């Protein structure tokens, strides 16, 4: 009976933790080289802003020194993009190179296709907004 209770408690916890972890969707990065190398990263979107907390301050501050002036724009952009869940923003076709930036089902999708490399990035807009807010909060005051 104790084991059953433990199992139930564990299952319940896993269900709740799983639900929370994936409630913002998944960030997906796929980089395929035509020489056979593949990098595929799937990360629960809710984890990414949390992961910023464990980045050493020193490293983050150095990065934020350069990105600082653009953070308000990034925050506003991610906030506004949520109003356009299904839209094509940029598409560039140049010979065999193709770049496309769009939103689909509340995700920002960036596709870059070149003859020797293909990159697909999908980020939930909610996650991008969280990251922008988090970065702005940690940026050194101007």
């Amino acid at each position, binding site marked *: *009976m104790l084991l*059953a*209770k433990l199992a*139930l*408690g564990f*299952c*319940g916890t896993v*269900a*709740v933790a*799983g*639900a*929370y972890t*994936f*409630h*913002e*969707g998944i960030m997906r990065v796929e980089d395929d080289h035509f020489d056979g190398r593949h990098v595929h990263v799937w990360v629960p979107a809710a984890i990414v802003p949390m992961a910023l907390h464990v980045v050493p301050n020193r490293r983050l501050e150095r990065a934020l020194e350069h990105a600082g*002036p*653009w953070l*308000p*724009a990034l*925050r*506003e*952009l991610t*906030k*506004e*993009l949520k*109003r*356009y*869940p*299904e*839209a*094509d*923003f*940029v*598409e*560039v*076709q*140049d*010979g065999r190179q193709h770049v496309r930036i769009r939103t689909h*089902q*509340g995700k920002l999708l960036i596709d870059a296709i070149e003859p020797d490399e293909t990159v697909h990035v999908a980020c939930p807009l909610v996650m991008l907004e969280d990251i922008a807010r988090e970065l702005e909060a940690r940026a050194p005051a101007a």
Partner: protein
Amino acid sequence: MNFPASRLTEKMALTLAASLVVAVALLAPVAAAQASPASGSSQNASASSHDRWLHVRITNPGKNEETVRVNLPLELAEKVLPTINKNRLHSGKVSFDDIDCHGVDLRALVDAVRTSKDGEFVTVQSKDSDVRVAKQNGYLFVHVFEKNRPKHSQVEVKVPMKVVDALFSAGKDELDLVAALHALSFQGDTELVSVKDEENTVRVWIDSKNVTD
């Protein structure tokens, strides 16, 4: 012996139900976001009906190799531009105080155009090119036609005067981009720029659609 078993079953059911309730509560926003393209498209449709989009399309009709399509919601640009403070751009305004305009007082020129009646301001017809600058029905038209190329080149610019007014509404030596975008968003579907030359075709226009044709 039946009592503990039924109690265990009851507890199992309760725990499972509680877990499901919490999971459903947490997953509901995802389900709503992911399983409803219809709601997404309805949001999109409502955004389309209210929002104005600036479109840029560059094509290379001869080779059909290069195509650039940009679709930008004017409201998004209005919100984001004021947050960029870099180089000449500050608070949605761009300064041009030290730009060399070959001695031309740009502001005085615009004031003169704004206050004058409808009509043609510049008409040049030569063997190489035709140039026409005119104001008509609240629009400023610029038309350039070059004849001395293998294929004729043609540039048509049509800018609503209200947009020009808004653009120059900031202080001296400044262009108010946000005000211009705001004024543009109240215009009907309009073709703003059209360039056709031997290599490329460029179109800039505004409408309520979030995609190019």
